[in-house]
């Protein structure tokens, strides 16, 4: 049998890596947290206002339906803000504060769709729309299956 030639591994220069991580500037932790809290909180506040508003507009609807309406409105607003080039500026300041709420999901889809619209509707916009949001959906589906299974097992006893 032929012997496999030993592959020369590319070794990492650990000393250099340590030096670089020591010298590299880090994100400022405290201001980032405060901004994320403020803007993330503001988005949730707007969501709450929308919830109350839709509740007044459609008094016949139950809570779940009104909740859906409120989230859809937030998604719509974020998509508009992305389209006119404001959301990325908000995101630059807020960081996680504007990524975690549902508006961040809307932004990730809209921005990818806009970026690729010149490649056509099918292979550009549609194919690339979930480029960034895709992992969120995949993880969401997988986790909900897991949680569902756990619930089901618990319900057996």
């Amino acid at each position: 049998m032929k012997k496999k030639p030993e592959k020369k591994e590319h070794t990492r220069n650990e000393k250099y890596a340590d030096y670089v991580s020591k010298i590299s500037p880090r994100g400022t932790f405290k201001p980032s947290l405060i901004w994320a809290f403020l803007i993330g909180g503001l988005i949730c506040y707007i969501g709450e206002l929308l919830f109350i508003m839709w509740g007044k507009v459609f008094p016949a609807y139950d809570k779940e339906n009104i909740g859906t309406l409120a989230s859809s409105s937030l998604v719509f607003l974020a998509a508009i803000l992305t389209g006119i080039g404001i959301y990325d500026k908000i995101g630059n300041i807020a960081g996680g504060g504007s990524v975690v709420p549902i508006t961040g999901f809307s932004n990730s889809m809209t921005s990818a769709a806009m970026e690729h619209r010149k490649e056509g509707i099918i292979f550009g916009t549609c194919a690339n729309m979930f480029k960034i949001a895709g992992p969120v959906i995949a993880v969401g589906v997988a986790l909900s299956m897991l949680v569902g299974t756990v619930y089901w097992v618990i319900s057996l006893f």
Partner: protein
Amino acid sequence: MKKQAAAATAGKKQIGQTIFLENAPCIIGSFSVAGKKESEGPLGKTFNKIVDDEYFGEKTHEAAEQQMFEMAIAGAIRDAGLHPEDINMLLSGDLLNQITSSSFAARSFDISFVGLYGACSTMALTLGIGAALVDAGFREKVVVSAGSHFATAERQYRTPLELGNQRPPVSQWTVTGCGACVLSLRENPPKNKSHITGNPRERHTDKCVPRITAVTFGKVRDWGTLDPNNMGAAMAPACCATLVAHFKDTGTTPQNYDAIFSGDLGKLGETIMRDLMANENYPLDARYSDCGRMIYSEKQNPYQGGSGCGCSAVTLNGFIMNKLRSGEYKKILFVATGALLSPVSSFQGNTIPGIAHAIVIES
């Protein structure tokens, strides 16, 4: 054959990684095109042409980049007082997949074309190879160019433009700009430049002609930087290796040059570079600066500074070329640096190799 090779080394055409250009090709024309953000930076006044529209009047950013290349190449030929039919060869490169911007721009010129890729080091790569071709007498007049566009580079290497994410503080900002030079053995005869139209930024009083006297082609260095945002750290070892090889091959020290410019290491990379060179016993003083750090002001929030092929290309063909032509710089070293990564390689967990090529320009 062997005799020939021996003769070549005896005449000291090459030592180590460095080739010496006995005929010292002249840079007879140069042109730089830059975008809006670059024009607002400290070097804004040195660029030949500023285009405020990020689309350059085209429909896509890719077409804009191509348009930018055409502008720079045509501009450099015009600056040399020549016409495209006088040029024998075009060497060009950019950052996009399959270097489409360069090759698509080459459609507009009836000139033999060679596309080159050296990531952000492309300006030095095309300049070095072009100078070697001219020096050896294979080609009489060669145009070399390199450039990049912020929006196309973001799309290729990072995330959509409108995505609301935060950039890490070590990241850099890709320069929208393109630079081109015309190389020739013979100096420009003082031709009537009356056919040059339009731009008041174009210089008419050049005291000196910059000449390329030596080129050091670098080796790929990978010290294991994994973060694709931290390109300064990935490229600094390559830049250091090329500089050390250059100083050893030529028997010079940093003090022999009026200025040393690295391509796009950025603020952080420049600091690393100074430390690395001090370790190699070639400490760099105030003569050394980095194009990436120079091109934007602190106010413009470029994080660590500019990057991309365009960064070193517009700085060379703007700021540096002006100083060479006015005679302020007599001898400079231009080291453009490149991070040879692709989005796929980073996702697959590969480290980032760096490359750097050094060019000596005297005037």
